[in-house]
């Protein structure tokens, strides 16, 4: 700004000099003209020619006009400048000699001057020979005779183009500077050393809550600063006015009473009078400060959450180095954050036996971006043991799918896992006990089945020997008893064949099997017992039953259990037949169903749920594990087992299993959870 002022000053000086030179030239000219007038009045007309000659040799652009304003003569420089003849120049009012934008104005002044005889002076753009317009100062002076009548007009064109251009540039520069200052959204102000507001832009006024700049000017800016910041601001202003640049955050109270947070960048501004003021640019940072505060609060809240949540949290760099563990994590493992951070830091807390596999898995996840999930033993500081934990982590990806960060949790599942293990062991024990129990009952059945024909064999053999030993020997009788012996031996053999079929399958292996065949074997084994209990068994086995994939022995245990329960339930039935229906059929969804229906004591609705719990029994002699284990077996086969009361007397138990069992793991899980 001061540079521009200096230029303007120099310019003014130069113009003044030139004006003075011109004035001197004018004066000289005037003197010469007066002298000439004094020399000869008579030779006036002739002297016109002379003066033309004189003008022609004068430096500068000079024209001589008639009293009516017509161009009478011009000097060589003028012709040279315009590149036009005298005749052409005489038509200046209608040609492009004068800049079209100036022409109307020029003609107006010129016409008025010619009419009034008053000297004229204006600025005008004139066309040079090459078509460029340059600014000139045109001064016209009338030359009068003794009577005062105008003889001629003498016109001097002074080239002021350079000055005009500088002035334009300056004006333009100042205008844009002012425009910038006025349109900037930041407050631009000049404050004197004592705090007086010397100047401020519209944004500054708005920032202070003033409706116009005028309301602000002349006031002491210190009054806007809040009391607690005022002394600090005063010191700052003094420092700037002493020549120091500076930056300050402070609060103001706006004219409408609202409190705002400002930030000012300031530099010293030297005035013409030698005093120094503060040129400052202030911005309202209230929103920014509030956002920062909210962010800090949000971060604090998040940190509080991660530090108090009863789960171990951690994060890691894309390369897999731990870069954060929450308090719970550190407390659990007893390590410092520094010990766990960085590449491989987490290996310190892993059980040595789990180390290799976990590291391999982690490295693989880092490579592929797959979710990390391992069951691993981690060091537990409180009792200095390793406990089973579930560690999980998922990658945070950018829009290109690159890993930015890993976020993970660790959950102690030691107790849960142990409980699961105990539950599994209990289930196994139960299943074993059921097998033992069933085996005991089976043994009794087998004994009965085998003893019956054996008894026949021994009786017949004894009879046979006695018949042969008689005198005379009863050969016909001996032959008959020997025949019976063979028959009973065959009968025993058939029992053995059935037993071998029942126990041939290895434990827990499955095979494609015919449920009907398995059912028939169980019926055959149970027949005598059912018979003894006066049970009328009615088998309804479907002809087109699909094969199932199952463990034969286990499935037969279930069927045997259902038959025995049904039989037991009908012990008290004496007023009618003890009917027992066993049915096989296709079930919905590629399943096969087996139903056992009795007419016994039935089921109270409230005991149905308990029926399948271990050690629940309605029988005085049972252990109450039959249905529980049966259900486990059926669920292991991907099926389900249920019981319901009949509409009439008795109850119905049934199971339904798929033709192809579900995955063993899934079924096993179901079993553990049940």
């Amino acid at each position: 700004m001061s540079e521009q002022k200096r230029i303007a000053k120099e310019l003014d000086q130069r113009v003044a000099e030139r004006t003075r030179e011109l004035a001197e030239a004018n004066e000289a000219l005037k003197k010469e003209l007066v002298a000439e007038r004094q020399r000869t009045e008579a030779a006036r007309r002739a002297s016109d020619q002379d003066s033309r000659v004189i003008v022609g040799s004068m430096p500068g652009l000079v024209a001589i006009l008639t009293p009516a304003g017509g161009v009478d003569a011009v000097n060589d420089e003028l012709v040279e400048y315009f590149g036009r003849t005298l005749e052409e120049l005489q038509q200046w009012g209608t040609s492009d000699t004068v800049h079209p934008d100036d022409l109307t104005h020029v003609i107006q002044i010129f016409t008025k001057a010619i009419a009034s005889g008053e000297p004229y002076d204006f600025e005008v753009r004139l066309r040079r020979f090459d078509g460029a317009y340059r600014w000139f100062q045109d001064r016209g002076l009338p030359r009068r005779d003794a009577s005062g009548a105008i003889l001629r007009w003498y016109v001097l064109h002074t080239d002021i183009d350079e000055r005009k251009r500088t002035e334009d540039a300056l004006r333009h520069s100042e205008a844009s500077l002012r425009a910038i200052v006025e349109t900037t959204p930041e407050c631009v102000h000049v404050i004197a050393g004592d705090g007086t507001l010397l100047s401020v832009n519209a944004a500054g006024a708005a920032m202070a809550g003033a409706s116009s700049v005028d309301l602000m000017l002349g006031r002491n800016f210190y009054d806007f600063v809040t009391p607690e910041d005022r002394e600090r601001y005063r010191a700052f202003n003094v420092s700037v006015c002493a020549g120091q640049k500076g930056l300050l955050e402070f609060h103001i109270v706006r004219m409408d009473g609202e409190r705002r947070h400002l930030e000012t960048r300031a530099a010293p501004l030297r005035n013409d009078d030698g005093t120094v003021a503060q040129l400052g640019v202030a911005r309202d940072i209230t929103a920014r400060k509030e956002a920062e505060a909210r962010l800090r609060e949000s971060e604090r809240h998040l940190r509080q959450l991660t530090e108090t949540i009863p789960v171990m949290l951690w994060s890691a760099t894309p390369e897999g180095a731990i870069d954060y563990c929450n308090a719970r994590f550190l407390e659990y493992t007893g390590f410092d954050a520094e010990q766990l951070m960085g590449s491989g830091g987490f290996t310190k807390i892993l059980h040595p036996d789990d180390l290799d596999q976990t590291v391999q898995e982690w490295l693989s996840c880092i490579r592929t971006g797959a979710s990390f999930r391992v069951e691993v033993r981690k060091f537990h500081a409180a009792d200095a043991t390793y406990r089973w934990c579930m560690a999980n982590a998922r990658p945070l990806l950018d829009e290109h799918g690159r890993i930015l960060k890993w976020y993970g949790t660790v959950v102690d599942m030691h107790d849960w896992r142990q409980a699961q293990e105990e539950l599994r062991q209990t289930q196994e024990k139960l299943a074993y006990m059921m097998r033992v129990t069933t085996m005991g009952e089976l043994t009794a059945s087998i004994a009965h089945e085998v003893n019956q024909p054996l008894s026949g064999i021994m009786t017949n053999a004894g009879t046979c020997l006695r018949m042969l030993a008689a005198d005379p020997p009863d050969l016909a009788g001996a032959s008959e008893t020997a025949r019976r012996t063979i028959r009973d031996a065959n009968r025993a053999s058939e029992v053995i064949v059935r037993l071998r079929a029942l126990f041939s399958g290895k434990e827990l292996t499955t095979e494609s099997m015919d449920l009907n065949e398995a059912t028939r074997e169980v019926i055959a084994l149970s027949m005598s017992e059912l018979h003894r209990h006066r049970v009328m068994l009615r088998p309804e086995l479907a002809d087109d039953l699909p094969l199932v994939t199952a463990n034969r022995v286990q499935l037969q245990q279930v069927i045997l259990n259902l038959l025995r329960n049904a039989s037991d339930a009908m012990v008290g039935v004496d007023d009618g037949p003890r009917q027992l229906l066993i049915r096989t059929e296709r079930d919905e969804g590629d399943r096969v169903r087996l139903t056992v229906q009795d007419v016994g004591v039935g089921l109270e609705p409230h005991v149905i749920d308990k029926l399948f719990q271990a050690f629940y029994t309605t029988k005085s002699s049972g252990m109450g594990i039959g249905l529980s284990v049966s259900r486990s077996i059926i669920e292991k086969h991907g099926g389900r087992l249920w019981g319901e009361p009949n509409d009439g007397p008795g109850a119905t138990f049934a199971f339904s299993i798929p033709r192809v069992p579900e995955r063993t793991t899934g079924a096993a899980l179901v079993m553990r959870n049940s």
Partner: protein
Amino acid sequence: MVQRSLVSVVDDDESVRESLPDLLRQFGFAVQAFSSAEAFLASEFVSQTNCLILDIAMVGMSGPDLQQELTRRRQAIPIVFITAHGDKTVRPRLLAQGAAECLFKPFSDDALLEALSNALGMR
């Protein structure tokens, strides 16, 4: 042996009814076989029977049931129980209730003869 003793066999197993009477006849007894306790009770041989060979587990009235019924009717017939079930606990209970013997199938012809001799000797 002027008059042969009558031994009645009650068993729901046909092969027993088939084979046992032949052996008993070899021993020199007169024999009647019945497929159920009810059939025996309904017959004319109850009072003539000197010894009863009785299966324990039968459809309908069981062996012990028949024993009770006979006691109720004051028909004091010595009873030799036979059973294919290997439950050894049943024997002392039956003997305590007045049975002559309890044989587990399969039993030898000698064991049967001894049991019958004892039962008939008790008379």
